[in-house]
């Protein structure tokens, strides 16, 4: 149905003389330019202020630029306010607030000396400690306001202009992670490139020989991370061997077997294991080790070593103990993933199985569990990464790992060697480990990232596999 059919009168356009039209168009363009120019200026000033804020948080050299940039922000927002007032005869309230904030910020920063103390606080602050946050906090809303007016002040512009509010925190956070990561990589590579202080071999060979007791004569002792790397793998493996059956069983129990009350109880227990501090697990480990002394289980819980004279020496804790305690940290992860996997089994499959006469247990073993395998696998890999990087449970029980790697040897791992390089009560151990602290941390980071990436890939692959189901 056209406009003529429903009786809308035909609108007759008045004939417009070509020259007048051109003039009108030109004047519109001019007014648009007058309106847009302050917005562009404000946007530029905001970007400049943001850059300066980042620079100020990194160094103290660009301090003198703070006041001019804040002044530019204030002037640009004033220009935009007057341009909008000239066009609409109305004052833009958000921009006036921003102008006020800029002026207040300028006044505060102008009045502060280069270094100042706050009464009561036991610290002295540099001027840049205040100017950086002030600039960052003012730059973002100014950019939003400028974008809004630049995009025409429409509702769509309103939506688009909010992007800096969300993007800036994300970019700053990602930059923080990147900076820490790059710092670690740089320092780690540096340590690996340097020759060993003891025998002069290349630094990276530290991963291929064992740590030798620093209390032995100086020509024998040397730093080594081989047992730490293998130990990290063994710890992750043992932890998974313990955590996987318990976690899967708990998840299956919560989702399928236990009624309302029992399932809830197990669920609360597993989430409490996850929610409570890892420090309790650290204490549990040392309690276990202390309690085992004097019992027949002592060699297995505490770890043992048969010295050159054939005597049995007890250590502080074995891989098995560490794995047992670390498993308590992983069980909730596996349980939760299993539960989700079981619950995601389509109802049709479950009912079809029941209709064909399968028992509940048959359905559980042959349908529900296979369905949940991708979830379980993802959780297992993430659990491995967590076990590999967990220091807290080894806090009181791990050692230098010089007696070899096995379920009943003294536990050690890469993560713990990073910790021991800093805080081992044995000064020689600290001194030997220190030159490879960053290298060990870098190796741990790579292992953790590889495991996590594998978990993510499995998750993504299996997430699309059953899309048609």
């Amino acid at each position, binding site marked *: 149905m056209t406009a003529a059919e429903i009786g809308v009168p035909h609108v007759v356009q008045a004939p417009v003389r070509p020259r007048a039209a051109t003039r009108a168009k030109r004047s519109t363009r001019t007014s648009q330019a007058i309106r847009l120019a302050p917005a562009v200026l404000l946007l530029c000033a905001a970007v400049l202020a943001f850059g300066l804020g980042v620079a100020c948080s990194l160094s*103290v050299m660009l301090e003198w630029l703070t006041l001019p940039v804040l002044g530019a922000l204030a002037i640009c927002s004033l220009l935009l306010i007057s341009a909008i007032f000239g066009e609409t005869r109305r004052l833009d309230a958000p921009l006036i607030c921003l102008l006020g904030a800029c002026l207040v910020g300028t006044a505060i920063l102008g009045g502060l000396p280069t*270094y100042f103390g706050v009464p009561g*606080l*036991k*610290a*002295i*602050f*540099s001027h*840049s400690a205040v100017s950086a946050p002030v600039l960052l906090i003012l730059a973002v809303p100014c950019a939003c306001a400028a974008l809004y007016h630049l995009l025409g002040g429409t*509702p769509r512009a*309103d*939506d688009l202009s*909010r*992007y800096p509010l969300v*993007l800036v*925190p*994300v970019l700053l956070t990602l930059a923080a992670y990147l900076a*820490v990561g790059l*710092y670690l990589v740089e320092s780690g590579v540096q340590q690996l490139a340097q020759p060993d202080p003891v025998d002069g071999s290349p630094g990276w060979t530290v991963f291929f020989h064992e740590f030798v007791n620093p209390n032995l004569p100086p020509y024998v002792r040397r730093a080594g991370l081989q047992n730490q790397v293998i130990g990290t793998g063994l710890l992750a493996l043992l932890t998974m061997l313990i955590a996987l059956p*318990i976690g899967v*069983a*708990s998840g*299956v*129990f*919560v989702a399928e*077997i236990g009624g309302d009350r029992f399932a809830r*109880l197990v669920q609360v*227990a597993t989430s*409490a*294991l996850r*929610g*409570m*501090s*890892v*420090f*309790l697990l650290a*204490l*549990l480990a*040392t309690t276990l080790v*202390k309690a085992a002394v004097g019992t027949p289980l002592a060699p297995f819980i505490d770890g043992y070593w048969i010295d050159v004279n054939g005597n049995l020496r007890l250590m*502080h804790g074995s891989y098995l103990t560490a794995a047992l305690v670390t498993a*308590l940290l992983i069980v909730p992860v596996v349980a939760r993933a299993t539960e989700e996997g079981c619950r995601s089994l389509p109802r049709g499959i479950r009912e079809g199985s029941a209709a064909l006469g399968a028992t*509940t247990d048959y359905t*559980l073993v042959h349908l529900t569990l296979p369905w949940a395998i991708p979830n379980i696998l993802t959780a297992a890999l993430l659990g491995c*990464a967590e076990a590999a*990087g*967990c*220091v807290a449970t080894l*806090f009181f029980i*791990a050692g230098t790992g010089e007696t070899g790697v096995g379920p009943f040897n003294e536990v050690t791992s890469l993560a713990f060697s*990073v910790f021991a390089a800093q*805080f081992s*009560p*044995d000064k020689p151990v600290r001194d030997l480990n220190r030159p490879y602290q960053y290298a060990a*941390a870098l190796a*741990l980071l790579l292992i*953790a*990232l590889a*495991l*996590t990436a594998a978990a993510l890939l499995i998750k993504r692959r299996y997430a699309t596999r059953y899309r048609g189901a």
Partner: protein
Amino acid sequence: MMRRLAAWPTVVATCLAMLPLLALGAIILSTLLRSLDAFARPAELFGPDLISPFVRTQGVQYGLQGPVWGSLLVTFVAIALALPGSLAMALVATEMRVPLLSDALSAIVGALAGIPPVIYAFGAIFLVQTFMAPKFAADGVSDIRLKAVLQGRPTFIPTELPQQFPNNSTLLGGVLLGLLIIPLMTPLIDDALHAVPPELKQASLALGAGYWYTLLRISLPWALPGIAAATTLGMLVALGEVVIPYFVIGGALNPIHVTSPLWDVFDRTPPLTSTGASLVGGVGGEEEGIRAQAIAVSYATALLLLAFAIGIMGFEQLLQRRLRARLHP
């Protein structure tokens, strides 16, 4: 019922599922039993000063007010940093799509979540060198490059490591814990935003509301229970983390007091976890004699942490119920 029990998968799963329950009971019981000595003297345990046997042998005091306040401060700083950070991350990943970044973000967050806490402790050195050291100082201004926060006070290994892991302020510990929990909180907030019924959003958009208005008035209120759950998780992790505070803030090797003014995050207030850990001692700790009381106090800190965790989880349950009741009246 008998026939169901006779089936082995059910029996095996049920038996194994009881293990976490037993382990939890054993942990709580052993912690309780070993901390009894500390609770025998409540006036000392809840006193204001903690002066451990590492500081001096005479006049040892085990007041936990300082560490408790340290835990609260650290958790507060971590959440204050992580909540806006993870919310912004989740918004970019789900609601406010940005080409390239949004797709990469979920993978980045997933990878970051797998990084062990001990790695984040290395961020301390970096942050001190680039951010803190040039900007803050505790004892006067000597040159352009100021000393690290509160340097000049007794530190862990002051002569050996001027640049590495200086015992630092509560603020730095909180910031690193914040970096640790952002990748843990983001997926939960992500899920909560995904779970907002699309018809609500479509109705809002159809009625003429903008995307930002819909986000503020529809999506975020609807996702509030999920955001509360994510915040709870973040708080629990920040409260319970040992390694980062141990590396960055330190433990009971210095006297610990309640800060004055209370919110002084530039002071060094170790939280309960690192205080307790350093009271037990390092590798193979627990020597006999003088340390018995210190170890009992360490178990008491663990018990307090457990109480805090239970309190936070209970409060979250209450909050969830209230929030859900408001959404589904």
